[in-house]
């Protein structure tokens, strides 16, 4: 059985450095991506009218475009478009 003196603990803590934050965030957004986040953001960047409609009324715009407009998805869209 391993003995955990302070030197060993320091070594073990150093062994698992944090993954790059952007990678972690992208992986955390997988459920949102499955619900259309990537498509929504891409379309909003390419289509000014869609972007403005999202800005005015995100919930109805998303529903009108065939997406489910749950709060987490709405928050993520706003964050990606930096509102």
């Amino acid at each position, binding site marked *: 059985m391993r003995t955990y003196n*302070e030197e060993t603990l320091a070594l073990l803590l150093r062994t698992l450095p944090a993954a790059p934050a952007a990678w972690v965030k992208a992986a955390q957004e997988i459920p949102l991506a499955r619900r259309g986040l990537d498509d929504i953001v891409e379309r909003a960047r390419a289509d000014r009218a869609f972007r403005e409609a999202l800005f005015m009324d995100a919930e109805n715009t998303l529903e009108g475009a065939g997406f489910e407009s749950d709060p987490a998805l709405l928050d993520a869209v706003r964050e990606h478009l930096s509102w």
Partner: protein
Amino acid sequence: MPVVETDAQLVARCRQGDDDAWRELVDRFSRYVYAIAVQAFRLPEADAEDVFQEVFARAYQNLPKLRDDSAIRPWLAQLTRRLCLDTIRAGAREQPGEIPEPVGVDDTIANLDESLYVHEALATLPSNCREILDRFFARDESYRLIGDALDLPAGTIASRISRCLVKLRTELEGRNPVAAESGG
């Protein structure tokens, strides 16, 4: 002291479609998956990123098929291992013959398992200890940077780290009575 969910509890919440649980699961295992890719398989950063994202995408997709919720860690390790090997093989497509795993993968992953165990114990400590130990050891921040971030005099950082390491050791000894008896 924070109450930390077991892996099985966290997986069960993910399976119910809880986005917060998924975020927490990624947070819990991101270091582990990353370390397998870059330490055990020594993948370059770009390949490691592809593997990292693919591991979590497949994990999300296949979570409902996991037979034992508490087996998420070895399942992720195996998935990461397989995808790393696929990446190495794809990069060496023009070379004939089977591409073996790099030497020492088992030992490295065993070491990462132990490190993850220590990180799990760290997660149960008060937030001030979690933060200072993580910043100093895992994020390799200087005393000055930590002092600025946590609004602490740089001269007190070393003693705080030492005290928090003692707390971490105590926490681990509580989980592992044999180690407590053997001292260190």
